[in-house]
């Protein structure tokens, strides 16, 4: 990166460090922090969406829908995360490719399963073998988001289901007394009020999600843990311009600081959100705010 980096062997001290920390590999390491933050930014709304759909389905008066919602949250919450992340992703990928295979290659006569192999026609591959590397990365990221959203959506569904039931029944009855339909009462009265009841549970879930991001590594995405492990490992002079011993402690120390900062900021944001949502609510905190204001 810097001009003086052309001959690393002659460098010492700070200039060595400056060159070392700006190698292509380190740049990939720094970029992977962005990947993790992007993943969090995307899975928060998607898992809330999954959770909201699951909770609304579970509350439904149409019983097949209600069973579906309850089964989703019960099964997914019961399966160990690691099993989900190891096997579900491959299964999901194969399911997509199978559907494309049926649609795109109707003339294909060979079976899709041949012994141990899963073989679809070349046109059905996701992404195509000819696609550039970034498409493969983007697809892997998409699978990761979907898996995270399904897993954490199940937990969010349970939290939101509880929150919906926590809204005082009198609020709904009043809405109905004003002549609102079932749907109107749900969207105008129940949904705006449920968030304050859901927040402690959702906040908890968010913290677990932050901690779970290193699972990305299991999904074949080169995330911060992957790079920290690779960069921190012992490097011999034959294979690098910057040989060093086992530095994994420093790299994992940096990850520790990153995650603690992230959770600390999250705590602050959640506190502010709780105060905002309590305003005007029929809860103890909302009542205290009303009195303080009066």
């Amino acid at each position, binding site marked *: 990166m810097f001009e003086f980096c052309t001959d690393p062997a002659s460098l010492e001290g700070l200039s060595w460090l400056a060159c070392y920390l700006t190698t292509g590999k380190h740049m990939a390491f720094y970029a992977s922090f962005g990947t993790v933050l992007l993943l969090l930014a995307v899975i928060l709304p998607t898992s809330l969406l999954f959770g909201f759909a699951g909770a609304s389905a579970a509350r439904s008066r149409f019983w097949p829908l209600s069973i579906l919602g309850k089964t989703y949250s019960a099964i997914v919450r019961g399966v160990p995360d690691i099993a989900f992340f190891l096997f579900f992703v491959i299964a999901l*990928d194969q399911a997509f490719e199978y559907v494309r295979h049926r649609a795109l290659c109707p003339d294909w006569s060979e079976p899709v399963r041949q*012994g141990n192999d899963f*073989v679809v026609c070349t046109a059905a591959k996701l992404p195509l*073998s000819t696609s550039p590397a970034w498409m493969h990365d983007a697809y892997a990221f998409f699978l990761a988001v979907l898996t995270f959203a399904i897993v954490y959506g199940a937990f969010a569904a349970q939290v939101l289901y509880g929150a919906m039931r926590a809204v005082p029944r009198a609020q709904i009855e009043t809405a109905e007394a004003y002549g609102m339909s079932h749907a109107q009462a749900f969207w105008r009265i129940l949904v705006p009020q449920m968030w304050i009841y859901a927040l402690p549970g959702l906040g908890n879930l968010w913290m677990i999600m932050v901690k779970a991001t290193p699972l990305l590594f299991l999904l*074949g995405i080169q995330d911060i843990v992957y790079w920290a*492990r690779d960069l921190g490992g012992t490097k011999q002079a034959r*294979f690098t311009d910057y040989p060093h011993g086992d530095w994994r402690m420093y790299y994992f120390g940096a990850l520790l600081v990153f995650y603690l900062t992230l959770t600390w900021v999250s705590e602050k944001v959640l506190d502010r959100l709780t105060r905002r949502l309590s305003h005007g609510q029929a809860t103890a905190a909302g009542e205290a705010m009303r009195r303080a204001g009066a």
Partner: protein
Amino acid sequence: MNKLILTAASLALVASTAMAQDVVRMGTEGAYPPWNYLDDDGNIAGFERDLGDELCARAELTCEWVVNDWDSIIPNLVSGNYDTIIAGMSITPERAEVIAFTQEYTPPDPSAYIALTDDVDLAGGVVAAQTGTIQAAFVADQGWTLVEFATPEETISAVRSGEADAVLADKSYLEPIAAEDDGLVLLAREEQIGGGVGMGLRQSDDELRETFDAVIGEMKCDGSLNALIEKWDVASTFGDC
């Protein structure tokens, strides 16, 4: 008009199929120098990078490199996420039940032990090996105490920290480590385990396997494979073919 669109679509399909056939995705671990590792720029380098690029050039294939964790390297191959495994994988009967191998591109070589001192008691101590390797299977078969790690790097740190007494791994991996670290020594004892190292392919992918088989044979005979082996110091060389 409809016919025209259909023809155009089928032409595009044929074209993309023909093109797609020519891109072969090569899966490797990227954490096992000198076989395969990531260089300072984050690109895959090592013996297998050089070998793979040469094989693809000779077979007139376009190849792309993919890094995949060792643990899931076989499941992702059979699931079609890449087309070959070229990652220092020894040919064993257990693996051959699941995937197909090309002919070996390095001869069977002994595995070696690395330890803090040269008088460790292997049978009574703890031996570390990477998960899913022939070395791990060997230690388990001996009835010794085995600790497994996901990456080769972790096995070495286990010896440095005293968690394990010795590491059993390919000699070519351990030699540069012992050369640069005064605290670690290679034991005189070596084990002759496993077959040579070959490329792994899906069992249904006969055509590609034959292509690679042919070019590996070609490189064996003209001496270029031996030259690569010596350049990276990964194994012993092949005799005349």
